[in-house]
């Protein structure tokens, strides 16, 4: 395992200062905080699982010939693609 330069407990102690010298433009990789990586990892994992379950529930409840069901599936699929949770598949 590669050595990490940043301690896992650095967050609260330094948190008003470890950034803010320049805008990060929303890039959590840019702040070099291990806690950001962990939170982002858990967050994307939860999001992936939740949206997958929502798609499955939508599909099993669909019936033929009802527009509403198709629109709901479209919406949930849009959320699934929109939540950056397919990112690991791209970067793997």
């Amino acid at each position: 395992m590669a050595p990490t330069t940043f301690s896992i407990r650095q967050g609260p102690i330094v948190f008003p200062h470890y950034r803010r010298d320049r805008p990060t433009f929303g890039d959590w990789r840019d702040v070099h905080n291990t806690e950001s990586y962990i939170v982002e990892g858990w967050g994307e994992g939860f999001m992936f699982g939740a949206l997958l379950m929502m798609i499955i529930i939508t599909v099993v409840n669909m019936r033929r010939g009802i527009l509403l069901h198709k629109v709901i599936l479209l919406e949930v699929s849009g959320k699934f693609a929109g939540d950056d949770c397919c990112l690991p598949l791209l970067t793997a």
Partner: protein
Amino acid sequence: MSFNGYGFYLSSTAALLYCSYFTHNVVAWMKIKPFFTGDHPSFSPRYCKAVQWVFLTTLAMTIPALIFEIFNNFRFFNNYSTLYQKVRPYEALMRDPWWLFSCLTLFHVIRKSYSLNFFKLIWRSPRFGIMLLAIFLAIIFTITDILSSIISGLSGTDG
């Protein structure tokens, strides 16, 4: 950025997310439409007309705002402007009121037409309890999201 075009990837997927917010509100309208139009509306004709008009007009008015947010999101994640950070806290206003209204309408109509009180209805059909629980969770998450974009230092990155 971890790879070339990472910002572009983030923003293009976020664009889908904004479209999906709008679709969610359209779905909400499709669900409650029968209570306001049709042969047997559940409310007085005047109220039905007002709700239909206000709901659809305000929903249509969110389209420019969402397009602006998509554009803004591209500018932010590709390091052009930080305007996104200023608009971000108000984003909930252009996506949440419509589906909240329709969920509460649905709950109210069902409660009224079966003439059951709040707890009895949830007891008979727990899925209403789940719906209300999901609404409260969604509101809590929205508030947390707004706070994390207002209070600097609460989240690791800005925006």
